[in-house]
């Protein structure tokens, strides 16, 4: 099995990589052989044969035996780790590790039958940027690795259902030399590499993933071995991810946490579990009359203080979006777009301001040790009649009877696993974590919607999930009282939501935040229109029918010159990556699966020029992505900078 080559290969390059590097006297750089290696059968346990079991002395054909140095924090896809020679060198290392006879015939990569390696890549249908990116990748992999890449479009939902997720089966496999069991398989990590989705696939750029710059501990969901919640590609880390994340969890200060993450992010940059490409900014076009939007990750947190022209209540704040909402039931919604639609009429516990600091909305959170957290609920919160005052009891009931109940699959159920909650006053409750986490609020886990206890009680007593999902008061946010800036007046399933101003909004009476909150929101009404066609959304922005809409990068320049539109570049934590299917139904080009081999993924990363992609497709409106963190994050490793 090719996978075993990986496992056997590399005990030395794990959590303690830095330790043995220093033992070898190598400061900050790992020397790797051009195209040799231990063939996968090497012990890998002796530090002497190099981090990847490659001794650096055996040259190879194709790359002229070039020595290739990978630093602690390798940055593939930019000079000097870009180009045909680097990619060939790394690919040949993968061939050595593979049980099967892959090779280069001139510049062409061929499989054991002598045919050119041909694999496919999926991109999102109807999205020009996605299509251009896929074409660029195909071109680069063709030129620098001699792979024939077939570009195919697919609808995101279909890809998710048939390719990306699978029936959770669990199972046992050898990962990194150890027997590992998938104890809690999920549709996005259904089991070992042998457990596959219905449909076979090779590569995809359909989905980007969150890199959680506010609390990178959450990233254990992707890389924490068999316990990872989210591992559709079937990645087996070659470093002890679980232990590194556990260590990071123990950090008692941000500085300690930053230090703990250096190893994690360097390992991820090295192993390329997903081929990291870039972080593109969100480009949002706004009505130029609008005061409030900022070029910041937290853009929009203070919407109640936004206004048009003068800070007086007038007009309507209208936006357009491409995706319709499946449900507005706050208990079950998992979609971003619907989350925005709910947020217009119902606040959650807290938000993040422009400095990425927690800004308390419904409740404030405090802790001394990171283990016991106290929630102080504001006293001026009211549900609609007949539910009355919002108290700590509503939140505690919600957590204990729904989020922690095994019969109710609420969206937040995984967030409250293992947390002990206790009401300590009419407006106060405490949550005790299994292990301390000083950044708990930044995980979004303790983020709650307020739901009246009396509304939930009948469903809880009957354990009636269906009734809860279909409850009209929940679906149409009829209980929201003074808890949102606007009141939801209509939800047309196909075309969006409409709102009117909430004259009783509680935020006006709080002490924190901008002074403008005291009279907000400054719009008589609001709406979110679902318009699937991009040309129509942009048309609405140009004519002023919409106050805000996303702008595709290829049209950035024309909108920047348009006086009817202000374009803001808003950084996001979502990345653009190539997901390579390391499961048994990935790699359709021949026997084995080269995607499972670290050097092959490195070769792919080295074959694609990040700068050319950013300039050519994203018009320079993106930054290169080397590890699982954007550059603006305080947890981005600063080594080699």
């Amino acid at each position, binding site marked *: 099995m090719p996978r075993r080559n990986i496992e056997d290969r590399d005990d030395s390059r794990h959590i303690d990589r830095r330790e043995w590097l220093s033992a070898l006297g190598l400061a900050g750089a790992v020397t790797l052989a051009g195209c040799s290696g231990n063939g996968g059968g090497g012990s890998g346990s002796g530090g002497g044969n190099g981090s990847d079991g490659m001794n650096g002395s055996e040259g190879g054909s194709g790359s002229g035996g070039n020595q290739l140095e990978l630093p602690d924090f390798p940055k593939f896809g930019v000079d000097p780790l870009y180009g045909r020679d680097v990619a060939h060198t790394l690919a040949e290392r993968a061939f050595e590790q593979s049980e099967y006879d892959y090779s280069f015939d001139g510049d062409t990569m061929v499989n054991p039958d002598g045919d050119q390696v041909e694999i496919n890549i999926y991109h999102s249908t109807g999205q020009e940027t996605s299509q251009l990116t896929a074409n660029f990748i195909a071109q680069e992999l063709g030129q620098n690795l001699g792979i024939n890449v077939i570009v195919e479009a697919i609808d995101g939902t279909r890809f998710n259902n048939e390719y990306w997720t699978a029936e959770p089966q669990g199972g046992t496999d050898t990962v990194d030399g150890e027997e590992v069991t998938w104890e809690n398989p999920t549709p996005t990590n259904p089991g070992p590499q042998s457990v596959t989705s219905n449909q076979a696939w090779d590569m995809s750029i359909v989905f980007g993933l969150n890199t959680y710059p506010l609390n990178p501990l959450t990233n254990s969901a992707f890389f924490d071995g068999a316990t990872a919640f989210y591992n559709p590609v079937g990645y087996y880390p070659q470093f002890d991810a679980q232990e590194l994340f556990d260590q990071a969890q123990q950090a008692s200060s941000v500085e300690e946490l930053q230090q703990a993450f250096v190893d994690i992010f360097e390992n991820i940059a090295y192993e390329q579990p997903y081929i990291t490409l870039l972080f593109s900014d969100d480009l949002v076009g706004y009505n130029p009359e609008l005061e409030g939007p900022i070029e910041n990750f937290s853009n929009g947190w203070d919407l109640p203080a936004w206004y048009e022209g003068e800070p007086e209540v007038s007009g309507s704040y209208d936006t357009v979006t491409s995706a*319709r909402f499946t449900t507005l039931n706050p208990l079950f919604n998992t979609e971003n777009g619907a989350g925005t639609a709910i947020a217009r009429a119902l606040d959650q516990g807290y938000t993040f301001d422009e400095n990425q600091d927690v800004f308390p909305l419904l409740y404030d959170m405090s802790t001394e040790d990171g283990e016991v957290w106290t929630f102080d609920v504001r006293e001026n919160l009211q549900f609609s009649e007949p539910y009355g005052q919002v108290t700590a009891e509503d939140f505690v009931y919600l957590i204990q009877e729904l989020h922690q109940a095994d019969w109710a699959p609420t969206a937040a159920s995984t967030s409250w696993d293992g947390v002990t909650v206790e009401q300590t006053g009419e407006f106060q409750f405490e949550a005790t974590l299994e292990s301390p986490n000083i950044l708990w609020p930044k995980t979004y886990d303790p983020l709650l919607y307020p739901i009246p206890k009396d509304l939930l009680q009948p469903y809880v007593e009957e354990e009636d999930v269906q009734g809860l999902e279909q409850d009209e008061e929940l679906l149409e946010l009829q209980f929201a009282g003074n808890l949102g800036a606007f009141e939801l007046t209509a939800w047309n399933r196909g075309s969006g939501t409409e709102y009117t101003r909430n004259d009783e909004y509680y935020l006006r009476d709080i002490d924190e935040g901008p002074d403008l909150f005291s009279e907000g929101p400054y719009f008589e009404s609001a709406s979110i229109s679902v318009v699937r066609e991009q040309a129509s959304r942009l048309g*609405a922005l140009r004519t002023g*029918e919409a106050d805000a809409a996303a702008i595709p990068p290829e049209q950035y320049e024309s909108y920047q010159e348009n006086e009817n539109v202000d374009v803001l570049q808003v950084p996001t934590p979502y990345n653009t990556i190539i997901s390579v299917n390391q499961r048994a139904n990935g790699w359709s080009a021949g026997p084995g699966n080269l995607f499972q081999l670290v050097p092959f993924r490195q070769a792919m990363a080295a074959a694609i020029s990040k700068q050319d992609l950013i300039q050519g497709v994203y018009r320079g409106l993106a930054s290169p992505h080397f590890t699982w963190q954007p550059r603006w994050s305080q947890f981005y490793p600063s080594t080699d900078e």
Partner: protein
Amino acid sequence: MGFGRYVSARVLWAAVVSLIIVTVTFLLLSAAPNPAVRRAATQAALQGGDPAEAAERVRELRGLDEPLYVRYMDFLRNVYTLDWGWSVSTSMPVTEAVTNALYYTAQYSIPWTILTIILGPLVGVYSAANMYSWKDHAATGFAFFGYAIPNFFFGIILLLIFGVWLEWIPVIYKPEVPVFSVQNAIQLTLPVFVLVTGSIGAVMRVSRNESAEFQNADFMKTAKAKGVSPLRAYAYHVMRPTLVPLSTTLVGQLLALFLGASLLVEVVFGIPGLGRLTYNALIQQDTNLVLGTTLFFTFVAVIGNLIEDLVFTVLDPRISYDDR
């Protein structure tokens, strides 16, 4: 066979056809894995429970552990009493989702159908009456242009010109506007125009060729010789026989109205109609809604065929009721 018996036989046959379709649908559904059961098993696994037990509980809760014939009878009752279940992709009952979407589809498809049915044959007969003149060429050119240009592309171009540049019509469709209002007429102008130009071509060409056949028929010569006005001659003597073969096309047209052709136009103009509803239901694997929309189209098709059979006999009394 008399007309009454003929109609009764056709209606009975339509009922049998619908029953067969519903039965086949039931068998396919019962053979397929149930998404609710799958979800429950996944949820149980996520929270450390027993997936098999959770799946069993949902099966019991939903009556899936009952014998096949009991489930079949339940299914039949639900289908014919319009209890089509809950749509998870729209969070409302399926019948309500279909009715809501139909409300918006009807607003553009009814004017579209009426205009196509009226204008298509009229332009066709007009072309035939002026065959090979510039009027014929102009009418044919117009019909071919509409037929050839993809609806969604034409829609985007018109939206750009009249919505974005000239700002005569709104870019975003507003569903809350009253049906019979100037605002609604304005916002539906472009979708109806695009659809009419797209569908008129086929009707126009068929009626042009059909009517060309009758222009010099003996009964037209007689009519002309008797001094019948050209308008009356074309309306009574040419149009009527022309419509007999055309009625097949027209019924097909009526049915297609509600789905395929309108999806892209609904996407471009943001109309929350049946096309988009069906498409989203398919994409999001909303089984109940897919079933609901499929049944809806099935019933429309069955009824459409019934109407077609009846229209034949009304339009052309020479068509026999026997052997049908």
